[in-house]
């Protein structure tokens, strides 16, 4: 037993040496830096499907097992961090006693000879006794910031001065701060949660789109969880007692010890459409409070309550009520369906090709675009829009973005409707011309008339009868043209005309083609006139309305939806995006922050310096030796020593 003790002791020493060694510390610093890079290059915490698309199923699994999608909470990352913590702690532990000793030690053991060996030294002889010199020399060093100790030495004295002890304090502060910050961060981290998960006490919820109330108990965290940071979206007027903690490819529901209600949410915008400010009036109800706490929070101005901080982080639609009209674009019906919708909800519709689901996804009150040059303004707000998905019975969906007000283009109004099939693509816009009353009804009635065989027939008759003599027999052709146009727009009509002209050649062919186009034009005009729509005040404008309508009709078969959704009215409901954090380690982290900043500046700018003045008296003359040393910034010290030397020389010469 006795023999084992020293060996165990020395083994411990070896380990201490290893963990406290600078080489290990530097290796760890590098490892931490490199692994941090990984987390910035590979975007963290995005939905797992995106990673699968990016890397393919095989590498997806490999990277997943390495924790690369959540580097900063991966086990190996925390391991490196832990090691660095250990290494720093040992470093402080090993160096502090020496530093403290050093701070008290004036190095009075130096002899004149050993001082002469210093890089910085100078010597003079003066005709004054050592005794008389002591007080002035002591003051000389003292006035320049040195603390001084005096010791008799041989036939003279040794004055030892030292300054910059704070430098060592700076070292200790800086390194202890690293430890303090890491511990504080650990308190705020989710390590306890990960342990619970590992022990199987909780289970991450990964099913998307289920209601918070349906989340099972295993995915709910109790109120006394020591630290967390999560988000929640609360519509105006609604409240919550729960928080969503996003993690990997799922989330936990955190129960809050209080209730948060958003009474009102306000947002203001700059002319360019970017948000200027947004804020929420919130009401916090806690059984421990006599009356609910009411406060307005905004970005940069959170509410702090009992160790919880409630932040305004973003905003979105909170379920605006939309009053919609669905204009059918296929089939015989021309009657618009009325839909009372709500953003975030799904609505079923019966379309010509089976039932459809209308999923209202968003409503925007403002849409700011760059204004056309020459309009005198830089930006223009083109008014409210809403986005939705139309999903067919097979589950396939297209996404649309429709505007409420017509967009002005050279004095002509158009309703924009963008379509896309891929969420990452841009919307490709279609335009519906506004009628003389700036509505969409005129065009829709025109379109409905085109789809109605009876009205087409009447229009064909009228076009044929009003046309030049010789075209009267063409009512049938006119009807045929209208039918093709209704079914397939410009493309189908052109195909039809080309097939009719198969036998004609040369100039004759061209002449005939023009006649067909004119006939179609006349028939459409007849169809339009028969409707007796409200007219524009001047003829040119009226003609423009008609032409825009025809151009849209010709392209409309390519519009991907069986309905055009018109936004008639709305009642906007906004939702505040809040973040709620419980951070018990924050005070500690901030303490560490303070320590590290002070420590670093003290360490760099209050250097540790030592000087000695050795006096040896011989026959009424005293030899004065000045020497100095420092542990860093030799160049700066050399300069300082020069000043010290010259000042002293000058004074000694005056004696």
């Amino acid at each position, binding site marked *: 037993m006795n023999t084992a003790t020293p060996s165990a002791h020395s083994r411990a020493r070896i380990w201490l040496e290893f963990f406290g060694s*600078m080489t290990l*510390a*530097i290796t760890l*610093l*590098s490892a*931490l*830096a490199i692994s*941090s*890079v990984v*987390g*910035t*290059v590979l*975007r*963290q915490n995005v939905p797992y499907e995106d990673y699968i698309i990016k890397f393919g199923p095989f590498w997806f699994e490999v990277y997943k097992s390495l924790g690369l999608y959540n*580097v*900063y909470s991966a086990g190996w990352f925390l391991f490196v961090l832990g090691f660095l913590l250990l290494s720093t702690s040992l470093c402080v532990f090993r160096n502090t006693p020496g530093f403290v000793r050093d701070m008290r030690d004036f190095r009075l053991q130096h002899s004149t000879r050993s001082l002469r060996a210093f890089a910085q030294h100078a010597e003079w002889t003066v005709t004054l006794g050592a005794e*008389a010199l002591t*007080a*002035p*020399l002591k*003051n*000389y060093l*003292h*006035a*320049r910031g040195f603390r001084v100790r005096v010791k008799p030495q041989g036939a003279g004295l040794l004055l030892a001065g030292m300054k910059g002890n704070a430098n060592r304090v700076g070292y200790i502060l800086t390194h202890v701060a690293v430890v303090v910050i890491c511990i504080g*961060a650990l308190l705020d981290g989710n390590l306890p949660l990960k342990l619970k998960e590992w022990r199987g006490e909780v289970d991450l919820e990964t099913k998307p789109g289920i209601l918070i109330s349906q989340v099972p108990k295993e995915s709910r965290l109790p109120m006394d969880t020591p630290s967390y*940071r999560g988000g929640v979206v609360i519509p105006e007027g609604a409240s919550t007692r729960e928080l969503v903690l996003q993690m990997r490819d799922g989330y936990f529901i955190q129960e809050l010890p209080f209730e948060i209600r958003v009474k009102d949410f306000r947002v203001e915008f*700059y002319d*360019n459409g*970017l*948000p*200027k*400010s947004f804020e929420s009036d919130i009401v916090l109800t806690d059984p421990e409070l006599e009356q609910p706490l009411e406060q307005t929070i905004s*970005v*940069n*101005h*959170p509410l702090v309550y009992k160790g919880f*901080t409630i*932040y305004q*982080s973003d905003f979105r639609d909170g379920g605006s009520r939309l009053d919609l009209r669905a204009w059918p674009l296929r089939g015989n019906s021309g009657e618009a369906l009325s839909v009372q919708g709500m953003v975030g909800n799904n609505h079923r519709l019966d379309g010509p090709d089976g039932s459809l689901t209308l999923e209202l996804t968003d409503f925007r009150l403002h849409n700011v675009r760059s204004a056309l040059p020459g309009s005198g303004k830089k930006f223009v707000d083109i008014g409210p829009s809403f986005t939705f998905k139309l999903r067919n019975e097979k589950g396939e969906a297209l996404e649309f973005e429709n505007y409420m007000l017509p967009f002005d283009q050279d004095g002509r109004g158009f309703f924009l409707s963008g379509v896309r099939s891929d969420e990452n693509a841009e919307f490709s816009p279609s335009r519906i011309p506004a009628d003389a009353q700036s509505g969409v009804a005129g065009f829709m009635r025109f379109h409905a008339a085109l789809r109605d065989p009876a009205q087409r027939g009447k229009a064909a008759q009228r076009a044929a009868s009003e046309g030049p003599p010789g075209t009267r027999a063409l009512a049938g052709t006119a009807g045929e043209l209208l039918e093709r146009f209704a079914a397939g727009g410009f493309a189908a009509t052109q195909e039809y005309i080309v097939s009719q002209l198969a036998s004609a050649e040369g100039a004759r062919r061209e002449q005939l083609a023009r006649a067909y186009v004119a006939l179609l034009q006349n028939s459409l005009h007849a169809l339009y006139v028969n409707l007796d729509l409200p007219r524009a005040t001047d003829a040119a404008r009226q003609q423009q309305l008609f032409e825009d309508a025809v151009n849209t009709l010709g392209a409309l078969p390519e519009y991907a939806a069986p309905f055009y959704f018109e936004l008639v009215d709305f009642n906007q409901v906004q939702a505040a995006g809040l*973040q709620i*954090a419980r*951070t018990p380690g*924050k005070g500690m*982290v*901030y303490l560490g*922050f303070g320590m*590290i*900043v002070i420590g*670093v*500046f003290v360490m*760099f700018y209050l250097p540790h310096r030592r000087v000695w003045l050795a006096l040896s008296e011989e026959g009424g003359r005293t030899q004065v030796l000045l020497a100095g040393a420092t542990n*860093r*910034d030799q*160049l*700066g010290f050399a300069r300082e020593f020069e000043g010290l030397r010259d*000042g002293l020389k000058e*004074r000694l010469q*005056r*004696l």
Partner: protein
Amino acid sequence: MSASPETLIKDFGKPSFLSTLTLFDWVWAALVVGGAAYVLYRYGAVMSEYEIGTLCGGALLLTGTGWHWKPLRVFSLAVAALSLSAVWLYGSQLASAETSFILRYLLASQSAIMWMSTLFILGTLAYFISLFARSDYAGQLASAFTWSAAAAGLIGLMVRWRESYLIHPDVGYMPLSNLYEVFILFMLVTTLLYLYYEGRYQTRALGPFVMLIIGAALAFLLWFTFERDGHEIQGLVPALKNWWMKIHVPANFVGYGSFALAGMVAIAYLLRERAERVNPQGVFATRLPSLEIMDDLMYKAITLGFGFFMLATVLGALWAAEAWGGYWSWDPKETWALIILLNYAGWLHFRFTKGWRGTPMAWWAIGGLGITTFAFMGVNMFLTGLHSYGGL
């Protein structure tokens, strides 16, 4: 000479710092403190405690810095006088820039920044001539151009500050918040740091090296202005409306500027080191400061940068706690700030504990500049995150 012990003791003491100050030092202090007092008297009622604190702290810091680094006094007074003239000329109309000759061609922020650009180019040329033609006169000219460029740039920012409020009081902000503005800040800080060391080490031979990085930044700034209209003033998004920004950003750029300075000095170091072996009579071996001085300068710049970058990162964390809901979110910019700190912490440890000096440390400082550049520019260009304010 005989003197009483008391007078002898007193004579061996040291005159107090204050008694070493000249009349101009006192005039300077009176102007700075008086100016701050006037602002407090005039606007104190509408200022928050933070703003009052910044004003008082800033005035004391400026006074002290001017006492320590004398040329700063004339520089600051000139910048203040010209900026205030511009504010006065503007009155309450942004349109004054069109009618006032001085604003239009000299002091409106865009004009001042164009003057800054011109003066930087002249300064760079003069520094190169001074080094290669061994001309001291060109060197003096170079310093004068560079000082003037820094003054013009600072005036540009000051006047831009006022202009943002003239556009609309709601738009107004301190111009330290988008890529255009921080590029000017970067050039200013790097230049002033360089000029400080130029005076301290009495050498102009490092000018061409530092001016190279200023020139690169200038090229980017001009491209950004003319191709992307980066100079347009737009209101701040809510997250940026925070008092911390006003010290977080400048502290950060003292860091970036110092690291840039260290990197460029490192290049000069390597050139001299090689020239001493290959061409001992050449310009690099004879005109550049000694290797020891350059090594020291690198060290000084890196310690200064490290301290300020640490301060900036800490301030950023405090701000993030108010704006993003957490003091640390592993946002790419945050993470790269940590990487910069880890890198230079490694550099400093090697110097302190292993005693490394010279060539390897110079290479490391150049590498550090690469990392810093990526953190400053690359993160915004290639990575997405919360710090998207300075997007390209």
